[in-house]
């Protein structure tokens, strides 16, 4: 795989928490490549370091060693403000608990990344509404999160993650709070709307019901990547695209 096809590259990444006797090695030299145009699932048992790795990749945590290259940038080496701007411009997030702002409507929630980037409110909300429309939320644009089902909230979260056209989408347990049917529907939407040739999608999960959506599955255990399966659905998706 050429470097031009790789969105995220981790080499010998280490991360530890605590000091002296209380020290915990969360990442013990992780090597991982995440490709553009594919959905990569990072799987493994609870406490194996998936979320820590996700936090390091997105620049929310600094590693204690190794090298992380995201979209050609070594994010950790960027000054604080540039790191935040890099994240704002290039990354989209889907969280396990959605983390929608309870006082904002679905459309306003989806528009938050654009608002954070200084886009005027009306224009931002218009764009968000357009995206929510494609995600099947046409009737629920003005609903508050408390008026939405879990699946609908996750669709709003997905719209929020995609509205500013990020090049890397990271999803933390996107189906953990959903039933099987709703989780499947959300993953179908994620696959249809998020996977693009110029975008990489990294999904942290231990929900084996959604493994079928992966192009690559990286298995983690005890702070290391222990197995990587690649090329799982690429052919299917290429076929779908051709259809």
């Amino acid at each position: 795989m050429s470097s031009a096809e790789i969105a995220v590259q981790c080499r010998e990444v280490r991360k530890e928490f605590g000091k002296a006797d209380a020290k915990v090695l969360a990442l013990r030299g992780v090597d991982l490549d995440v490709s553009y145009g594919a959905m990569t699932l990072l799987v493994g048992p609870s406490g194996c370091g998936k979320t820590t790795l996700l936090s390091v990749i997105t620049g929310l945590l600094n590693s204690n060693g190794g090298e992380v290259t995201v979209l050609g940038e070594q994010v950790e080496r960027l000054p604080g403000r540039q790191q935040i701007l890099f994240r704002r411009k290039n990354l989209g997030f889907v969280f396990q608990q959605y983390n929608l702002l309870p006082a904002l409507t679905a459309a306003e929630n989806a528009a938050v990344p654009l608002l954070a980037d200084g886009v005027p409110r009306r224009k931002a909300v218009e764009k968000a509404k357009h995206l929510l429309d494609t995600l099947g939320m046409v009737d629920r644009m003005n609903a508050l999160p408390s008026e939405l089902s879990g699946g609908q909230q996750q669709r709003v979260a997905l719209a929020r993650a995609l509205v500013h056209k990020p090049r890397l989408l990271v999803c933390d347990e996107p189906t953990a709070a959903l039933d099987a049917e709703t989780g499947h529907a959300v993953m179908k939407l994620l696959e249809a709307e998020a996977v693009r040739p110029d975008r990489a999608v990294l999904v942290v999960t231990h929900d084996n019901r959604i493994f079928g959506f992966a192009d690559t599955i990286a298995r983690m255990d005890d702070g290391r990547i222990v197995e990587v399966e690649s090329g799982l659905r690429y052919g299917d998706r290429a076929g779908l695209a051709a259809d």
Partner: protein
Amino acid sequence: MNFVALKMLTGDRAKYLGLVFTIAFCTFLLENQSSIFAGILRRTGSQIADVTDAEIWVMDPKTEYFDQTKRLKDTDLDRVRGVEGVRWAAKLFKGNPVARTLDGKFDVAICLGLDDATLAGAPRKMLLGSWERLREPDSVVIDKAGYVLLFPGEPLQLDRTLELNDHKATIVGISDASAPFASYPVMHARYNQAVNFVGRERTELSFVLVRPQPGIDPAGLCRRIEAHTGLRARTSDEFQWDCVRYYMKNTGIPVNFGITISIALIVGVVVAGQTFYIFTIENLKQFGALKAIGVTNWRITGMILLQALTVGVMGFSLGSGLCAAFFAITLNNLATRGLVLMWQNVIGTGVAILLVVVIASLISIRRVLFLEPAAVFRG
């Protein structure tokens, strides 16, 4: 993001209204108590303020405030008149006779004796009668509050008689004199008449009222009068402030009001701070998500400050409105007349409220700034 901040704030209606009413309550207490405090202290010099035709008061060198008088010699009047820059000087007597009505109701009164020839030093506003009638024998002008005190429930009426230290006096006018510090009736009479009412002593002159020549600085003329006569000379403003300072220093009034004002501030900071803190803590995950998405700490600080200032402005406006309504309602009560919402107190309270909301928001901001954005991934 300002829009997001404001929607976050107003979305939780119970806490939003709680914050607004806390600030409004704090504002009301601060403005109300500080204005009443200032109004009461201003009353200590209200008889000075009522004299509008003289700008300088001359008195015994040891006099500290209006109610403390030591008689001057009659010749002091001429010595003051001889100072360069004095346009005219008039004598003023102040005594405290006991006023008694024919029904037997009585009270200590403030009796001011005005220069016989010019009646200089009289308050300008008359509600009934005329100053000129003071030239009639045994005549006095009484203030409305004093009249109501001595003749409760009776209509304002001229030519009624009362006794001042066993001397018969006839009411020939009812004035709108400013409320004194103590709720005594304020009476004006001619100088010689007032001296008779109170009882003659070896010397009777309480104050000399002075008007400077046009273009002469009153404060400068005061210093010149002091240098030439050895007496104490103060401009009306200086003398009023002397009274305020005396009461501040020698009474428990500042302590009493100070405690109320401090409690208002503490309640404001603690309740608003705690409510705002809880509000922020409940939104901590959302703030974490915003930080992860790429909203800077500066922007989040701005959002929290905007929320705090919005609450502050709303609460301050509501509290000020309530306080203004309170003073509008009580303005015409005799007991509270002259107590008004002063603009200085509004500005002072505004600054205090600004501090309250900034302190309240700083506690919350600190929590958000130290929030690790990665925490947003922890379920």
